[in-house]
């Protein structure tokens, strides 16, 4: 492992932080924030892979006639564009589920919800 791979180390550090928030916190809104951090980590993993040293954004300048310009790889950008939009859609859905859970149970803490469920059964 070398420090030239700092982008992988950084993405993985973010990913682990997001995962830690998701599995260790009881509050559901906090869990959604953790999921978002997780998502940003994955996006970074892709985008850093697409970067080419000395390259520029994959937008062809108006005065470029040949193919002498070096561009960064556009494919990870396209994939992550889709991922961001879908991620926001899932965030909205998850947060509205949390609102319904709050209305039904009166709390947004996971262990409280489990306790209330168990009381209802037993």
């Amino acid at each position: 492992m070398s420090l030239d791979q700092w982008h992988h180390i950084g993405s993985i550090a973010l990913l682990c932080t997001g995962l830690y928030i998701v599995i260790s916190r009881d509050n559901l809104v906090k869990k959604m924030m953790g999921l978002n951090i997780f998502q940003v980590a994955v996006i970074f993993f892709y985008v850093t892979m697409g970067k080419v040293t000395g390259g520029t954004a994959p937008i062809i300048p108006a005065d470029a006639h040949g193919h002498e310009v070096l561009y960064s790889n556009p494919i990870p950008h396209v994939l992550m564009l889709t991922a961001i939009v879908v991620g926001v859609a899932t965030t909205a859905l998850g947060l509205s589920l949390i609102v319904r859970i709050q209305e039904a149970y009166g709390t947004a803490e996971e262990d409280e919800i489990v306790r209330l469920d168990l009381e209802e059964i037993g």
Partner: protein
Amino acid sequence: MPIEALLFVLLVVLALAIAHMRDLFAAAMLFSIFSLLSAGMFTLMDAVDVAFTEAAVGAGISTVLILGTLALTSNEERNGPFRLTPLLVCLGLGATLIYGTRDLPVYGDPGAVVHHHVAPEYIEGSHNIHIPNVVTTVLASYRGYDTFGETTVVFTAGLGVLLLLGGAARRRDPEEEAAPQATSEVTS
């Protein structure tokens, strides 16, 4: 090491601060800063379209959605006990993943395999059909059905939100009518 590495450190610090913060409103503010910073980094990494999308939907809408949820639920997190197992799981996963990335190319390597398969073809094609933005070309032309599927997903999610929050279940109960209306004034 380039400037992005420093920003990455800031990003990880922010994520840890979000994990530490018990006040959920403060965590939401830090989350908005997190989105802004990540979008700035996308610009530095030449992913201007990703930064654009992150600006429009990530930094703006996610924060507002989280704030709206906080207005309807509690905004203080209960102080739970410290748990060791999740920390160990995360550290183990991180170590495994870092071990797995040892063979991957270094940052900005122009000789990496990923840059030499279809990417030059897409850039060439975009050049030939006179669309300056390669990402637009790929998104709308080469992967048009993919984008169509994406809009379907967003539509379905919007439908789900409408069913959950404004659906028939609430209209049946006239006493509960007052409470959602009072809260909808807040979110509008």
